[in-house]
C-alpha cells in the first residue's frame, strides 16, 4: 500500500534525508521518500502491518526532528 503523508514543520533538508534513511530501515517498509520541498512523506509498506508501521514511522520522525509532525 502506498500513501502520502504531510510533514509539518520539517525545517531542515539534512533531517529530511536522515528521516528517509531511518524510515527505510523500519521492518515492513518497502519504499520511503521524504521530500523537504513538498514536505511530504511517501510510504509504501505491507498493507497488513500498515498501522503498526506508521506508529514506528511517527516515532522515528519524532526522534530525529522533534519539531516535525507527521499528519495522519
Amino acid at each position, binding site marked *: 500500500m502506498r500513501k*502520502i503523508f504531510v510533514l509539518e514543520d520539517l*525545517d*531542515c*533538508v*539534512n533531517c529530511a*534525508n536522515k528521516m528517509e534513511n531511518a524510515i527505510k530501515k523500519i521492518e515492513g517498509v518497502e519504499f520511503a*521518500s521524504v*521530500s*523537504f*520541498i*513538498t*514536505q*511530504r512523506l*511517501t510510504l509504501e509498506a505491507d498493507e497488513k502491518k500498515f498501522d503498526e508501521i506508521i506508529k514506528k514511522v511517527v516515532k522515528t520522525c519524532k*526522534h530525529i526532528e*522533534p*519539531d516535525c509532525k507527521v499528519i495522519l
Partner: protein
Amino acid sequence: MKEKSLTRKEKRNLIRIIVALTLFIIIFTLDKIFVLGNILTGNFSWLLPFCLYLLVYIIIGYDIIFRATRNIFHGKIFDENFLMVFATLGAFALAITKGVMGQEIEGFDEACAVLIFYQVGEFFQSYATNKSRKSISKLMDIRPDYANLKVGENIDKVDPSIIKIGDIIVINPGEKIPLDGIVIKGTTTLDTKALTGESFPKEVKDGDEILSGCVNIQSQIEVKVTKIFYDSTVNKILELVENAASQKSKAENFITKFAKYYTPIVVSVAVLLAIVPSLITSNWFTWIYRALSFLVVSCPCALVISIPLSFFAGIGTSSKNGILIKGSNYLEKLNSANIYIFDKTGTLTKGNFTVTKVFPKENGEEILKLASIAENASSHPIAKCILNYYNKPIPSGYTLTNIGGKGVIASNSHETIYCGNAELMQENKIEYPHQDGTGTVVYVAKNDTFIGYILISDQIKDETKDVISKLNSYGCKTIMLTGDNKNVAEKVAKGIGISDYKASLLPQDKVDEIENIMNTKQQKDIVCFVGDGINDAPSLMRSDIGIAMGNVGSDAAIEAADIVLMKDDLNGIILAKKIAKKTLKIVKQNIVFSIAIKIAILALSAVGITNMWFAVFGDVGVAVLAILNAMRVNKIKKTKS
C-alpha cells in the same frame, strides 16, 4: 506586493534578525569607538562587552540553543544546531579566557555575527523553498473543491469524491470541471490552461467528452460522469505532481551521501586541528580558534537544499508548460537521453486519414463518385474517409461484392466498378499505373478500364520535421516504428529526416523492437520512447523514459509514462529537454561551486588566513547564491511553436 509573501514564522524570524542586527551594530560601533573592554578594569574587564553581546546572542540564537540542548540529550552531536552553538560558545569562552588572562578582549562580536549570518541563511532558505512550494501549489489549484450533483430537479453541492459513475453534474460558468464525463446538455467553451499550459479555448457540445481540470468559461452545461474522482484526470495529475518529489535523481542521492559524511569529517578534522598543532606549538588559542571556524562551516544544509530545489523548479516549470514529469530522476535522464523512438501513427502523424491526392485531377469528381458507390456500405476507415471527402449524394442500385483484403466490386446492369488495391486490378486484368505513394492507394476502374486512383494518407504533424531535425542536431538518434511497409516507411522517414525506421511492425512487435534496442544499446545510451499513449503502455514502461503525449484522458498512459505531454505537440519534447538541460547545468554548477567554496574556506581557516567572520560569510553567501541560482531554472525562455 499585497500578497502575503512571508509565513508567520518567517515574519517572526525576519523581525528577530533585524532587531538583533541593529542591536549588534550599535554595540559593535560603541565597542570600536569606546573599547568596551577598557571601561571596567582588572580581571572583570570582559564582563561589560560580554553581557551586551550575550544579549544579542540570546535574541538571535535562543531557538538554536534550545534545540542544541535537546539534541545533546538525544546523543546527536553531529547536529547543526549543536555544532553552531558549540562553535559560538567556544568563541565566547576563548574571549573570556583572554580577558581573564589580561589580554586584549576580542571575539564576542564574532560569535554573535556567526549566529546572525547563520539565521540570515536559514531565513533565506525557508523563503526560497516556500516560494517554490507556492509555485507548485498554484498548479495544485486545479483540485476541484466541490461538484454540483443533480438529483431530480435539485442541485446539491457535494464533495467530488462521493460522485458515482453515471451521476449527472452541473457545471456553471467559472467553475472547474470536477470529474471526467460526457456533456449531455448545453454547449460551452472550456479553458484548458491547467491541463495543457496554454489558454486555448475549446468548444464543446452535446456528446463531447470533457476532462476534469479544465475551467468552464461560457455557459452552464450538464455532464454525465464517466469516471469517479479517484480515476479522473485531475486526480491523476495531482497525484503525479505530489509524487514527483519522491523519485530522486542521482545528483540528489550524491549530495545526500556527501552530506552524510561531510559533517563527521569536518568535525573530526576540527578536533584534530584543535589538539595536534596545539600540542606541538602550545599555541592553544590560535588552533582552537581555527578549529571553531571549521565548525561554523560544518553544516551542509545550504548545499543539500539547492539541489532538490533546482530539480523541483525544473519540474514546476515543466508543469506550467503542460509537461508533467514524474520525478527528478527523469529530468536527469532526459538531459542525457540520446535515442528517441517514435511511434508513427498519432505521434509523428496526426493519426487521422484523409484523401491527400486524386489522380488524374481533372477526373477527380468522377473517380470519387465511383469510389463512393463502391465503398458506400463499408465501415472500413479507408472507405469512411473517401465517403467523407466526397460528401455528396451517391447513386444507388448497385450490387456490392466485397473481395476481402483487396477491395470492392460494384455492378449494375450496364457497368462494373472496381475499387481497391493493386491486387484487385491484377486479378481482373486491368492495366494500371503502379503507385508507390506514402499511404494507401485505392485504384478505381470502370468496365475494365483504369480511371484513376485516390491516395489516402495520414498527415505528418506540422512540427514533426522541425522537432526531428532539432533532435538530430543535438546528436540524438531518432527511430520511427511503424506498421507501414518498408517503401512507405522509408519515404516518410526521408521526408521528416528521421535517422532510422523499423517497418511492417504489428502492434505487439513494437515492444519487442524496443526490447531489442534496450538490449543492444551501450550502457551510456538512454532510450526514450514517444507514443500517443494508446495501446503502448508496455513500450512506455520498457524504455528508459516513456513519453506519452496528447492523451490526457488515457489512464494507462499517465500511469505507464514517465513524462506526459498534455498537449499533442512534439515541441514539448524539445522544451522538456531544454528545461532538463538547464536544470542539470545549474545543479552541476551548484555542486561544484558550493563544494569548492566550502573546501576553500576550510583550507584557509586551517592555515589561519581567514577568520570566523569570513568563514560564516562565505558559507551563508554561497548558500544564498546557490539558491538564487536554483531559482533561475524558472526563467526558461519558451520557444515559439
